[in-house]
């Protein structure tokens, strides 16, 4: 009887199966634990969000009353103070900033969406660089240009300048994305009909990109409205009512910052109330922008 050698394949197969079965339980357990850990990370990430919102809502809501929204600030210790001047001030600052940033941003987005050359590349790089600049440094620039020289003292327009710069790259990028998303057949149809590029842009492309534009713009505005650092030495805040662009002006983020670090409880309460107001505004803008965009898209496709 001949003795055959062991088939190495079969021997290996047996050995591999032995190891696989011996380790299977451990491997499966490790996999389950690891996934659990990842899910725990998700929960850990969301806990601060929940905690923050809960506190802002609870402490902020207790500050909300008619006086809070309609009165001007009162000195510490005297009740009945409000943030009316800050609400108006924020509107002034952010309104001016948006008025400048939106047209420039959309125009830049239009340019970048329609060209891919080296110039466009450089511009895109510049926009990227700009968006990475810390907001406090932008504030220094605004200070140098409009406070130290320009107007000569703290002013709302200096703040608008700083916030506008911060809004600009965001609007540009959102516009470029929205415009690139417009099917090229639309523009081509316009060209085929002999229309000028500018007309096509106005009549065809921008309207088609409008939902995306609105979302991008409103998000940029929301972000700009929440910025504090650019306001610290430009608008610097105020206790008085003002709509003048050339004077210091109150703003909601400044109210939060300046009141939040005070020792007086009624001032701290105002800070919480303003914080809630700011969060609500931003939420409304973010959600609202998406709803408006969705609505527009639906209306369009009908």
């Amino acid at each position, binding site marked *: 009887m001949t003795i055959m050698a062991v088939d190495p394949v079969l021997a290996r197969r047996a050995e591999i199966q032995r190891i696989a079965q011996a380790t299977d339980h451990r491997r499966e357990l490790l996999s389950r634990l690891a996934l659990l850990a990842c899910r725990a990370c*998700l929960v850990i990430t969301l806990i601060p969000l929940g905690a923050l919102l809960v506190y802002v809502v609870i402490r902020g809501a207790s500050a909300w009353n008619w006086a809070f929204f309609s009165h001007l600030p009162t000195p510490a210790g005297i009740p009945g103070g409000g943030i009316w001047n800050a609400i108006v001030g924020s509107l002034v600052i952010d309104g001016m900033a948006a008025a400048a940033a939106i047209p420039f941003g959309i125009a830049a987005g239009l340019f970048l969406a329609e060209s891919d050359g080296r110039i466009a590349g450089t511009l895109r790089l510049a926009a990227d660089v700009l968006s990475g600049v810390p907001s406090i440094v932008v504030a220094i620039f605004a200070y140098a240009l409009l406070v130290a020289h320009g107007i000569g003292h703290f002013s709302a327009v200096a703040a608008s300048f700083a916030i506008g710069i911060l809004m*600009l790259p965001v609007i540009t990028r959102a516009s470029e994305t929205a415009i690139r998303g417009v099917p090229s057949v639309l523009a081509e149809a316009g060209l085929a009909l002999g229309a000028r590029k500018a007309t096509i842009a106005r009549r065809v492309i921008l309207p088609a990109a409008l939902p995306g534009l609105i979302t991008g713009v409103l998000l940029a505005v929301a972000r700009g409205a929440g910025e504090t650092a650019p306001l610290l*030495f430009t608008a610097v805040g105020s206790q008085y009512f003002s709509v003048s662009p050339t004077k210091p002006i109150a703003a909601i983020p400044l109210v939060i910052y300046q009141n939040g670090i005070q020792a007086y409880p009624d001032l701290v309460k105002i800070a919480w109330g303003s914080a809630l107001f700011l969060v609500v505004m*931003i939420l409304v803008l973010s959600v609202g922008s998406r709803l408006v965009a969705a609505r527009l898209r639906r209306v369009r496709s009908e």
Partner: protein
Amino acid sequence: MRRLLSVPDGAYRGALGVVAALFVILLVAFVTSLAIQARPAFAHFGFSFLTSTKWDPVHVHYGALVFLVGTMETTVIALMIAFPIGLGCALALAFGIPQRLRVALGTAVELLAAVPSVVYGLWGLLVVAPWVRTIIEPALAHITGGHGPFGGSQLGVGLLLAGVILAIMVMPTMVAISRDVLAAVPEVEIEGAFALGATRWQVMRRVVVPSARAGILGATTLATGRALGETIAVTMVIGNTDRFTHSLFGQTQTMASLIANEFTEATEPFHLSALVAVGVLLLVVAIVVNLAARLLVRSVGRQRALGIGVL
């Protein structure tokens, strides 16, 4: 206005080009103005500006080392927290939760980014700092024996709190981008791993994460950039003393918080110039990091589009 928008093509392109060029003009003006303002300080103090720890407006001696270190410290602490937890969170969002929950939870994480910095600061100062002071710092000191990084007085505000708040603030960046790159790993690679008998974790660890590592690095770098430039929240919780701290519980300053705190009170001319000089330092660091991040994230996209394996 209507006529303006019907201009000939050449003028149209030209006008748009001018507008886009404004970006460059803006940047140039920006850098120039900063350079002009900062020059006196750099010229006068030279290299010692970077190496000296003395920041003394009274005796007119300025050195930014404390704040450089403070910025690095807060950023490192923030990343040490945000990187692992953010990656785990991204893995969970991409692979660990049922399909129907993905959008909702993903949006919830992104909501973290919508909260303004000053609100984080307020909450951190008034709500979290007391917890840190009364619960966390004593506990940490107890566990570690209260030496070195866990020693010193426990005030709540300080380096640790700043790092934690910063971590929370950069988490959405880390998670959102990581989640996108993880989800973009080609299905075929994942299937190939499963078909060999891999468990879910083995697939994530050996195939998906390595495949996505350039993008994850980009996300981390971007998060770093955000952390570096963060001003208000940090200012409100870091304690604001102009010197080093050897403990996590201690107070210090970052470059950004220094400027926020002292700019309006800088009466002495060198003081202002020194502050702007610190701003220039911050700018340089932030720009370098942000550019690196965008290059990394972009290169991932391009490599995938060209079908090249991601290294």
